[in-house]
């Protein structure tokens, strides 16, 4: 079928079709079937082994250890004076960062009609939601008396107290809640037509499942109109929310009276950093999906990796810019504590991490992503993505536990040695992957209707001798 057509002619036109999903349309029915198959295909034993392994990690490292932490207190973790904040918050920031890619791809790219986004908006959106779940977990792990976490909720209570709106943490709470809810809804809306499709071609419990999710969607003009409107509103409105979330997270640090932290550039710096790690994670996830799930090679192609690769390169440059900007200003300020801190970053016991951060976030992406051919190589770009995520995790680690080592009271300086945080952090990662694997079996990862919409809009057009891709505005 499609394959032989691909490898048939080698004319420029054929080449273009081969390259671009949008120019390589298949009947909608066939695409539906492909997506359904990818979802319904019987999991191999490997799949179950992985699921089992991950579930064990989640149960033991995440929940059991958490129980220990609650029972014994934060002393189980590596935190102390002056490192009152540790890996838990590193992970919080890290996961929130990951979650930004989803919104970026499915909202910003949608607003700007970047067509290559179409096949993987959902995959990205899933990342957002699942990532935020991990962020939430991590921040609760951090609390000394997590059983009282509900005290931070604004509701009338017998304590006659409302949350302290002066505190960046309260803003965090509001922002993250908002972001989690809205990104989940934003994940769900475009999903409706696809589950409706799945509903029409499934039986048994899945039928009921999809039927319930589809809410009785038929695809009447009215339904489509409401959906379209809603999605447009979301696409525009969720962008500022996304920006606000990580800006506020950055304020947790920027608002503090600490050398190295009180920096006005932290907001954008963090956002770019978030996108940096987010894109890296997204591309890695895509590569896995493409590699492991049936028919995905049709939907996710080199062009997509190439496109995301470009974004990664740009973002990496932006990150470098902000990093240097921050560094330069801190360095120039000449405050002795900041000087000490910068010195500690580079030459201190964790100096290797500082340099590793630069290598992972700048050197490697730049060295590889400039090349279109490499950029179109899924495994390569995915590797870069993973490396970037290491780099960005390092960055957060440097900003939090390493930076708080240096304060204005040298008598208290101490180096942070992680404890129970490490297994619990691994637990969050496992949970993220686990959720994703389960989701991949339950909901269509490819928004078929969006793909078809796109394919309708694309065509090859002849200008003189040259055949070029042209897109027509449907709306």
């Amino acid at each position, binding site marked *: 079928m499609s394959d032989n057509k691909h490898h048939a002619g080698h004319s420029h036109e054929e080449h273009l079709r081969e390259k671009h999903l949008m120019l390589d349309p298949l009947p909608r029915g066939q695409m539906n079937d492909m997506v359904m198959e990818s979802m319904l295909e019987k999991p191999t034993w490997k799949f179950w082994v992985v699921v089992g392994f991950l579930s064990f990690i989640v149960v033991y490292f995440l929940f059991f250890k958490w129980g220990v932490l609650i029972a014994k207190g934060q002393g189980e973790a590596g935190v102390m004076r002056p490192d009152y904040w540790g890996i838990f918050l590193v992970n919080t920031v890290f996961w929130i960062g990951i979650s930004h890619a989803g919104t970026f791809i499915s909202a910003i790219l949608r607003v700007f009609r970047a067509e290559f986004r179409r096949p993987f908006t959902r995959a990205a959106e899933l990342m957002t939601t699942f990532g935020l779940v991990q962020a939430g977990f991590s921040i609760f792990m951090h609390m000394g008396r997590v059983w009282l976490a509900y005290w931070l909720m604004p509701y009338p209570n017998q304590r006659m107290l409302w949350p302290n709106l002066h505190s960046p943490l309260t803003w965090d709470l509001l922002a993250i809640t908002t972001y989690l809810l809205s990104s989940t809804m934003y994940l769900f809306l475009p999903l409706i037509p696809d589950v409706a499709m799945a509903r029409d071609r499934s039986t048994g419990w899945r039928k009921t499942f999809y039927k319930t999710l589809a809410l009785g969607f038929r695809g009447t003009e009215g339904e489509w109109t409401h959906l379209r409107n809603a999605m447009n509103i979301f696409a525009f409105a969720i962008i500022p929310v996304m920006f606000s979330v990580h800006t506020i997270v950055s304020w947790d640090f920027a608002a503090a009276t600490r050398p190295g932290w009180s920096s006005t550039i932290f907001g954008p710096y963090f956002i770019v950093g978030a996108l940096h790690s987010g894109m890296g994670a997204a591309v890695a996830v895509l590569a896995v999906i493409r590699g492991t799930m049936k028919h995905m090679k049709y939907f996710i192609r080199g062009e997509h990796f190439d496109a995301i690769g470009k974004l990664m390169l740009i973002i990496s440059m932006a990150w470098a810019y902000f990093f240097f900007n921050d560094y330069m200003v801190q360095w120039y300020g000449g405050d002795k504590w900041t000087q*000490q801190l910068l010195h500690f970053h580079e030459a201190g016991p964790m100096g290797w991490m500082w340099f590793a951060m630069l290598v992972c976030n700048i050197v490697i992406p730049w060295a590889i992503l400039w090349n279109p051919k490499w950029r179109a190589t899924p495994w390569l770009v995915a590797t870069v993505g993973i490396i970037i995520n290491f780099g960005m995790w390092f960055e957060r680690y440097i900003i939090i536990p390493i930076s708080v080592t240096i304060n204005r009271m*040298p*008598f208290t300086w101490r180096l942070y040695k992680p404890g129970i945080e490490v297994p619990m952090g691994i637990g969050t990662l496992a949970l993220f992957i686990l959720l994703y694997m389960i989701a991949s079996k339950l909901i269509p990862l490819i928004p078929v209707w969006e793909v078809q919409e796109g394919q309708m809009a694309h065509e090859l057009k002849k200008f003189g001798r040259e055949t070029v891709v042209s897109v027509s505005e449907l709306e």
Partner: protein
Amino acid sequence: MSNKFSRRDFLKLAGVGAATTAILTGCGPASRFVKREPYMQMPEYTYNGLSTYYATTCRECAAGCGLVVRTSQGRALKVEGNANNPLNLGKTCARGQATLQGLYNPNRVRGPIKHTRGERLYTADANPFQDEFADATPNMDWDAATQAVADALKNHKPEEIAFLMGMAPDHLFDLVTDLAAATGINAPVRFGALSMFESRATLSQAAENLFGHGGLPLFDVGGAEVVFSFGANFLETWLSPVSYTRGFAGLREAKTKQRGTFIQFESRMSSTAGKADEWMPIRPGTEAMVALAIGKLVSDARGITVPHAFSDVDPVVVASRSGIALATLQHLAGIFANSTAALAIPGGAALGQSNGLAVAEAVLALNALAENFGRHGGVFFSALAPNQTEYQRPASAREMQEFAQKMADGKFKVLFVHGVNPVFELPASLDFKNALKGVEQVISFATFPDETAFESDYVFPDHHSLESWGYQRVVTGPAQSVLSGAQPVVSPFYDTRATADVLIAAAQLAGGEFATALPFTDEVEFLRSKIAPLMEEKQSFFSAPDLNTFTAYFQQYGGWWKTSDGRRVPNTSNALGREMSPAEAKFAGEGEFFFVPFVSPTMAEAGANKPWLQELPDPTTTVMWNTWVEINPVTAEELGLLDDDIVKITSEAGVLEVPVYRYPAIRPDTIAIPFGQGHTAYSRYAEGRGKNPADLLGQHFNEAGDLAFAGMKVKIEKTGKQQPLSRLESIMGVYGVGLGEEK
């Protein structure tokens, strides 16, 4: 400044107020104890939330500071200084503050126990944070206990009975002394590790040699302008730290004159030296010659004929030997010479050397040169405490050696031990533990299950000091003659009994001359018999028509003292005329390092069983919960040592493995280890924690019979093992270690 004093006066008043509460609360002789009531049913005089304050005396060391203890519903809550007491004027040291952790220590001897030597008195691995009942259960009642003591007394010849007692409390010492005097049993021997490290014998001996009669010199630091201290760590544990600290504050604040200058000669910077304007890292053993040299240079500077005492010393030689440049010596001499109120203090490690006596004499001679005797900011003889005819110094180490020898030779059949823990405190080489084997019956009155109690046949626990009656003579510190009074602030927590009561009862049982020797119904009656004579005294802080009221006041105010200055002026006629030898000290054992043990300022000899004292950072190293050896960073580098590396220290007497603290303020040829840790018993907080430098000490004494504890040389070798010391300070922030290479 006047305000400060006015404030201090106010505190006094407050104290009186507190004390007044005490008498109101019926703690006169009428009621002996305050019962510890459940919170539901309180004694009639306590109101919910209202505290009752009792004045008593601190027994963490022998200085005899007055305390006012806040109690509530029969529980002791907080220890404050007694503002009335001229010794400490309402102040306390850290150890005093932590007394309560002794009172409520989870490992106390809970009642009379007959036990086989070497047997444990509490379970070994009791969790420091859980309330585990970890103590040996009493296996006999007090009647049996008293009987046992009585038998021990009457079934042996008087010369076979010996009493070994601590520096506190004095009333018990007096009681035993009376007993001994009347019955011919051996006079009680007193000893304490602090007194050993203070070299008290040397001090009074030197005073005797110079001034004709012995006694404990009192150095009026507060009044001086220039203070030269030769090893005296008077801000830590030396003699009477609280009052000397107040003196130091006076020296510094110096409202009426210039801010006083303070110079410390010491091979290792103690926390006292840390407060000095100049620290002279003097080569151990050269203190005497340095003192003499300064004396000579001062005389030169003053242009007077060099007194005989300083005549045969050559500053140039001294400079080369002591490591203090001649210029510096002259500069120091200048400071000393130009001051109208210069003061020189001998003490600490300087005296604990083979030539300790010479050092003490030389330094006292400096004072003679400064002509400060009996002058404001000068040297006095401490005021004798009431009911004290002359200064009774504790046993010197050599006397303890003889004592131990007698024990080993089986001269003693019965040994009573109270208030002292010789097995831990004496040098291991003296092997007191084995000497005990020569004694048929060892009866310990220990409150805590200490090493000596472990080696006893009977443990008849005395009350904790806060549960006890008594008094303590203030041997030095204030101008007045002071007797600090002690009274129970809470009822005994366990089935303990006052040793005085036990002895009195036992004496009655023993009958005969014992009974006549102690004709008292109990401890309190004995106390009153001792206090009664004070009623006749003139210029007393308070007076009363009858003994009951007098005793009541005695308890309220926490003692009795005169209002007049009781300090005596030494006769210095021939102080400078004596021959003084600038000879260097001789050091025992081969090895390249001078070994300086010093008493831990926060722990002292008996603090190790109090968790909060363990968690107090050492003033100089901020190390908590452990023992360390201080080594100069340069030396450490030569030996390839880093912080926390365990080194093996070998002296002629023993071997010790201690983690290293690279201490920037110690001579490269010297190492120092704090004394106070390294217990093999003494509660879950002390046992197995740190090391005891006494294990390294050999049996060498100075001319006065004090232990030459600083007179040894030791070898160091790296073991390759490590043990992280927990410090409060940040190695990064304070020493720049682990911050990355220098900018």
